[in-house]
């Protein structure tokens, strides 16, 4: 048994215990890896109805400056995405980069809707990275922009095709939000900040809630039979099927956004200017390509290939890459993986072998997401 004495607990810890969760240490927190339903059924339930996830371990913080242009410019100095152009009530995915263009963390950034909040940007970062992220950000900010770390709020994700109809019963205005929009809401009279986004490939919300009200919000959602609690185990298989990177595995300080195949987070202005850490290197990679690329991999048969499994070219003994995330996709009904391979082997359909326990399993480079994303796009 792991020593749990030093582990932190989220405001929903008591609820997890009450719901019969199996708790494991994760990023310094005691977190539910699964509930009595089990990983497989939790995964499938999220895809067909709605799952509730406690992601309060993630870091929530504000960047606070005198006006949007100033705060956005301060953040742009650390990330390769457009922040100046981010409109009120909109959210964007981006990455913190080091001087080599390597990824320090990936994060979500939202600009508040209200005019009186001009100059504020909300960020949500990975639990395991948050202390270092805050150090990096705080050290880089100009005098007139401050980092305010939020310690007194929980973060609850509600994900799945029925998330919107359930959410609307408690916060009717949530229904009007489109994918990657964020705004304050009254949830049964509790002031929350919600974004219409998540980490499962499904429609849904991430809801930032004052810690004291977290259990009330979670219980209100769980009272609906369309919602069940879902642990970190299913969260991982859901994001893998959705083709989404897990920081520290699929992307890290040694991979750039180009190698990680997440250049969608870089908008045109930044790609032209290269005015971000590691910009020269990233621009060169954009122009000339990279040695290696992150790809999706589908395997023949049922045996999963796990993180660390070696990848080779059929008919050769040469190891050309490694699996960075892998497992069994419950919705796909088959094993799936992500990994890095030389760019010449990154074309969809390229045949490869993955070594699992000394056996070479046949695999093919596959399009991601593996399971179609079902985000809610507002009609124009």
């Amino acid at each position, binding site marked *: *048994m792991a020593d749990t004495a030093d582990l932190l607990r989220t405001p929903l810890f008591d609820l997890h215990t009450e719901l019969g969760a199996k708790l494991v240490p994760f990023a310094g927190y005691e977190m539910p*890896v*699964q509930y009595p339903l*089990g*990983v*497989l*059924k939790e*995964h499938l339930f999220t895809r067909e109805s709605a799952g509730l996830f406690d992601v309060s371990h993630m870091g929530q913080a504000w960047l606070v400056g005198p006006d949007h242009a100033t705060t956005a410019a301060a953040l742009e100095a650390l990330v390769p995405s457009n922040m100046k152009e981010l409109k009120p009530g909109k959210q964007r995915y981006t990455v913190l980069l080091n001087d080599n263009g390597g990824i320090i963390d990936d994060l979500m950034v939202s600009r508040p809707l209200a005019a009186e909040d001009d100059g504020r940007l909300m960020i949500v970062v990975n639990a395991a990275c948050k202390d270092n992220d805050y150090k990096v950000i705080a050290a880089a900010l100009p005098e007139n922009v401050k980092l305010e770390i939020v310690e007194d709020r929980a973060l609850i994700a509600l994900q799945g095709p029925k998330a919107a109809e359930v959410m609307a019963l408690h916060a009717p205005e949530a229904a009007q939000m489109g994918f990657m929009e964020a705004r304050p809401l009254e949830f049964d009279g509790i002031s929350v900040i919600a974004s219409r986004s998540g980490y499962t490939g499904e429609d849904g919300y991430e809801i930032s809630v004052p810690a004291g009200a977290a259990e009330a919000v979670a219980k209100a959602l769980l009272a609906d039979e369309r919602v069940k609690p879902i642990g970190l*185990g*299913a969260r*991982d*298989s859901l994001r893998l099927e959705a083709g989404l990177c897990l920081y520290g595995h699929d992307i890290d300080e040694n991979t750039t956004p180009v190698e990680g195949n997440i250049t969608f987070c870089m908008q045109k202005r930044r790609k032209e200017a290269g005015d971000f850490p590691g910009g020269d290197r990233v621009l060169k990679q954009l122009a000339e390509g990279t040695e290696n690329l992150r790809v999706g991999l589908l395997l023949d048969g*049922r*045996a*999963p290939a*796990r993180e660390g499994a070696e990848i080779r070219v059929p008919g050769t003994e040469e190891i050309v890459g490694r699996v960075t995330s892998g*497992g*069994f996709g*419950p919705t796909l009904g088959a*094993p799936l993986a992500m990994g890095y391979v030389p760019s010449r082997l990154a074309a969809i359909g390229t045949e490869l072998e993955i070594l699992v*326990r000394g056996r070479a399993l046949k695999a093919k480079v596959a399009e991601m997401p593996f399971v179609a994303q079902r985000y809610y796009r507002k009609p124009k």
Partner: protein
Amino acid sequence: MSTYFTKDHEWLKVEGDVATVGITDFAQNQLGDVVYVELPENGKSVSQDDEVAVVESVKAASEVYAPVDGEIVEGNELLVDEPAKVNEEAEGAAWFFKIKLGNASQLEGLMSEADYKAFVETL
């Protein structure tokens, strides 16, 4: 017929000189939903504690060890097509393999059902 258990959460049912081996209900419960089982080849000679089979849940892979020396005489093909059976009938229809005992005296070092239950209590 006698039943034995190991600290690696396997059970053996011995009939004559052949033992049927599976993982315990406790083990399947710890693993969670089983999505893949890899069986040993028939005819393979194995030694006690060799890794002979693999059971994988959505999240992780675990080894199944040979509880005794011997020769693999049959793998349970049912598990190849329906790995989830391990969660339903771990100590029955979802046995993993049959092994012809190479050294029956090793059985004396294994646990009885009562000992195994007591062992699980300590975990």
